[in-house]
């Protein structure tokens, strides 16, 4: 009986008191958000500027929580948000929640190998046949180097 009551107390204590908002990384300093559309319409002009973006978290790195995908609610646009491994860990539960992220836009030019790999994955996802000859030049990817984030 005694032992049972201990287990019961432990189980009760285990009920996680979930907070409403979770902060990650540094405090957010900007007041106004910039829409993903504004950024993606002319990404070059946003490189090197600190921006605050918001959207729905559509995906999170499943193993280490070191990136997430943020989507615009209207336009179907999405942006990869990257943190340094281990510095911030995004939980998979964040998917479907609203998030605001402060960071700087980065432009990454992939190598041909990486581009081909990426297109293969994309084709597999869409159930299309991958044709190597269609890939003629390296992809350019824009992503946000996150400094701080608040989820939901």
């Amino acid at each position, binding site marked *: 009986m005694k032992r049972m009551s201990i287990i019961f107390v432990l189980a009760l204590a285990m009920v996680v008191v979930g907070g409403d908002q979770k902060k990650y990384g540094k405090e957010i300093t900007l007041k106004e958000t910039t829409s993903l559309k504004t950024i993606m319409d002319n990404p070059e002009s946003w490189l090197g500027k600190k921006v605050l973006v918001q959207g*729905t978290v559509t995906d999170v790195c*499943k193993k280490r929580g070191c990136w997430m995908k943020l*989507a615009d609610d209207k336009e*179907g646009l999405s942006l990869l948000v990257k943190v340094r491994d281990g510095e911030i860990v995004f939980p*998979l*539960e964040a*998917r*479907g929640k609203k998030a605001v992220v402060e960071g700087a836009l980065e432009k990454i030019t992939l190598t041909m190998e990486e581009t081909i790999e990426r297109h293969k994955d994309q084709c597999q996802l*869409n*159930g299309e046949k991958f044709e190597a000859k269609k890939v003629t030049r390296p992809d350019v990817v824009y992503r946000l180097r996150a400094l701080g984030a608040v989820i939901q």
Partner: protein
Amino acid sequence: MRIRKYLRIWHRDLGYFFAGITIIFALSGLAVNHIDDWNPNYKITHYDGPLPARFQDMPPLILVKELGLADSIKGFVKTGPASVRIFFGMNVLDVDREAGVYRLEKVEERSWLRAFNRLHLNELKNNWVWFSDLFAVVLLFLSLSGLVMVRGKKGFAKRGVWLLALGMVIPIMFLSGIMS
């Protein structure tokens, strides 16, 4: 020796007290050791299939209701001109109305193991670091007191020292590059 008696008492009681954390760290240690082969936090399964014809022209909100997900739905986003990603619980449903297919990603959290991994990898930061430190110090005490508290021919001088040395040979071989 008097001191052996106290070492024994403390070894036993600290052993009881920290047995739980030791088990937590041992299990999560195993889990994170294999993080490159295996997802220690979530079990993820994919289900693909054709989208029944009657769903294909529905707007997202109706579709969600028709699929019976309305209760647990967290939201949805458009992921393309004719595709939508619906979030319910930890799961994700991708619907592509043009291609007429769906893909369900079912996520089951390995909730205990994940909690343990967070403790082990110090993801909680703040004060947990100090308790984690305390655990390390206790482990030191347990191993050192364990070495010396047995008396006689099963004690450290006669038996323990050899087993200790033997146990050290393996990590030393790894560090010196003899094994890899």
